[in-house]
């Protein structure tokens, strides 16, 4: 790449041609105040005017996020005119903003508030009429409040890259412009799959998860037997809420914190991930043996289930009938566990800590409750757990490492841990399927082909003369490719893993925000590396486990012997399996 000579604040630098001023300045050590500098330009580009700088010879100030550097360019960031213009840009954004910052759950991570701080924006400079606002809190997963939207369009770009066909878009014009699903509908009546990816990139509080902390508080107050379980991906990211480096596994501290928050039992959802594998691998082998519907597709990701029901109703028989792991755990807790411990299931309240916003919707599905008793009663995101811990006054750094409860349930294998990253369910299933077909453990344990972050991964495995073709996709955009092949009758696979979010659960819509301006101690390329760092935390926990295959989890054998009979038995079907229903995207 050719280099060009530029000057910033009079100091000469050599930078690559083709970079924008904003990017070039960042490499030279200047963070020009902006709302997108930290986000790969995942926005509508040049519209917010927060990053204005002076360029010698240019007509007026230029938006550094879209203006490319060229030979001999002289840039001034801190000229009085540029400083005043950036401040005015933020003040104008604030003039059409609801500004209830103190109650806003995003305030700690609000990029607009941060931009206001660094530019010195003052409140009330341009008071006037405000754009009519929409507050959509109909779904159990995501709240959209357009009074906080700054029209950056980042959510639209993220939705495009994750979902494929963006559910969100700009609508209307000029002062009346808003961002939302077509017709400014609620997410509930739109093709939204509730994955929550938009909430992770929204710079303000315009898009956030719907909190269920109040429901948990109410359960404690009512004297319920409150049990909590945590998904694998949570431990790989929760530390970020307390300033720890991305990728630090915090299993022990997380458990210690939950025990101090008053939960009767603190379990690992991994136990149920192992159970899922027992059921799912058996289902797969049954389908292969009996010429059932193939390829079979995993059903752990509720975002993916929403997508399938709305877009591929004809392919629903391909979905595994297995409930997702935390739902299985809920069902076992409210049957087996309650039975053994003499608890009335009505008095039990199961809380799931999930990296996911779609799980909030999933727990309310009518297919996942029996006689009015839900398998899972409340779902909190990783971010909400962070809030719960902060609220309690617990000093995170002083927490010891403690162990998950493990009595008649709760033990887990390494296979369960890797569910949290794309390819993990596949790898866990292969470990057990291999054993079921050969009676031996696969010597490698690791199945490298299904690891990593390629959009679509595939592998072929020869098991006792049977070739099993598998594929893994994450993000609906990638999944669509595999699904269209199935529809066209061209799919060669036996088993497909699909996760709603790009990267899998470690990058779920409920995970801590990765906003570099609030992470001064992370590497500059953190937006490109955080997924791999969180994934590494899970893979390392898998390696530390003595037992790494679901079928070798000693409690699985016990559960089947004492309660369920065998995998896919009648009782297992009743408790651990579910059904799906095609529905219209636009109701």
């Amino acid at each position, binding site marked *: 790449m050719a280099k060009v000579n530029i000057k910033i604040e009079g100091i000469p630098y050599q930078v690559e041609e083709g970079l924008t001023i904003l990017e070039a300045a960042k490499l030279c050590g200047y963070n020009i105040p902006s709302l997108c500098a930290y986000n790969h330009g995942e926005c509508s580009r040049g519209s917010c005017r927060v990053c204005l700088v002076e360029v010698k010879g240019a007509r007026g100030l230029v938006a550094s996020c879209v203006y490319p550097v060229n030979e001999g360019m002289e840039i001034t960031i801190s000229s009085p005119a540029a400083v005043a213009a950036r401040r005015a840009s933020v003040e104008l954004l604030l003039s059409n903003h609801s500004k209830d910052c103190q109650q806003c759950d995003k305030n700690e991570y609000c990029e607009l508030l941060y931009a206001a701080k660094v530019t010195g924006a003052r409140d009330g400079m341009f008071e006037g009429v405000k754009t009519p606002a929409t507050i959509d809190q109909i779904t159990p997963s995501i709240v959209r409040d357009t009074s906080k939207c700054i029209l950056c369009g980042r959510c*639209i770009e993220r939705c495009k890259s994750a979902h494929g*066909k963006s*559910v969100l*878009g700009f*609508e209307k014009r000029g002062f009346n412009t808003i961002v939302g699903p*077509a*017709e400014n509908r609620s997410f509930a009546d739109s093709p939204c799959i509730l994955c929550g990816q938009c909430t992770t990139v929204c710079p303000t509080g315009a898009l956030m998860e719907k909190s269920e902390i109040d429901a948990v508080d109410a359960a404690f107050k009512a004297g319920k037997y409150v049990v909590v379980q945590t998904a694998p991906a949570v431990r790989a990211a929760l530390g970020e809420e307390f300033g720890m480096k991305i990728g630090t596994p915090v299993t022990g501290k997380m458990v210690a914190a939950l025990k101090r928050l008053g939960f009767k039992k603190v379990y690992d959802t991994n136990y149920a991930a192992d159970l899922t594998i027992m059921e799912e691998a058996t289902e797969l082998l049954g389908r292969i043996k009996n010429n059932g519907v193939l390829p079979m597709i995993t059903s752990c990701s509720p975002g993916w289930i929403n997508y399938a029901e709305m877009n591929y109703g004809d392919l629903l028989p391909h979905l595994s009938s297995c409930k997702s792991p935390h739902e299985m755990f809920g069902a076992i807790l409210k049957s087996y566990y309650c039975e053994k411990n003499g608890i009335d299931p009505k008095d039990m309240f199961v809380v799931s800590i999930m990296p996911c916003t779609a799980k909030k919707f999933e727990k309310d599905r009518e297919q996942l409750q029996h006689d009015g008793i839900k398998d899972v009663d409340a779902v909190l995101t990783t971010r909400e757990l962070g809030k719960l811990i902060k609220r309690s006054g617990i000093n995170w750094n002083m927490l010891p490492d403690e162990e998950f409860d493990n009595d008649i349930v709760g033990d887990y294998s390494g296979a369960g841990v890797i569910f949290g990253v794309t390819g993990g369910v596949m790898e866990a299933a292969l470990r057990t399927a291999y054993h079921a077909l050969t009676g031996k453990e696969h010597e490698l344990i690791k199945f490298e082909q299904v690891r990593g972050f390629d959009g679509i991964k595939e592998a072929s495995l020869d098991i006792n003369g049977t070739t099993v073709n598998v594929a893994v996709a994450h993000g609906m955009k990638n999944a669509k490719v595999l699904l269209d092949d199935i529809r066209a009758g061209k799919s060669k696979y036996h088993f497909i893993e699909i996760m709603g979010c790009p990267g899998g659960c470690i990058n779920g819509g409920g995970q801590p925000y990765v906003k570099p301006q609030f992470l001064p101690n992370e590497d500059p390329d953190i937006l490109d590396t955080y997924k791999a760092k969180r994934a590494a935390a899970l893979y390392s926990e898998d390696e530390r486990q003595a037992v790494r295959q679901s079928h070798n989890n000693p409690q699985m054998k016990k559960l089947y012997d004492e309660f369920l009979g065998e995998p896919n038995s009648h009782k297992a079907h009743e408790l651990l399996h579910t059904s799906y229903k095609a529905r219209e995207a*636009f109701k």
Partner: protein
Amino acid sequence: MSHLSEAAVAQINEICSRYENEPTPLMMILSDIQKEYGYIPLEVQELVSDKTGISVAEIYGVVTFYSFFSLKPKGKYVVGCCLGTACYVKGAQNVIDKFSELLGIKPGETSDDGLFTLDALRCIGACGIAPAVSINGQVYPKLSVSDVPGIVEKYRKGEV
């Protein structure tokens, strides 16, 4: 999508396929549909989305951005009053107010009998004959408030 007739579905599919090889076909497709049906409801947008792969949200954004496109059926006669700068200073606001009063509808609305739609337009490039009104392409120059009742009557009686 259920209440679109088969003929309409076929025609919209045909319109979409006219521009199959265009890199950015959306404006042309919407423009043809608008001309053909006079409006582009959500069901039609869903159909265009299926054919082109462009999301409904994006299509809806385009339809609501340009005033040429409409989400609701327009009347038999579309009264477009120019409110551009030249027309405005020549009294266009009074003209549109008179139309509004006589037709019983606000700008952007369609009368209950489906006969008239009143639109407030920005500059239509006819500043020399300000204030100008365009009804289904027929331009009325240098209008004054007193001209309005006669014009409305003419269209009501179908004398055009």
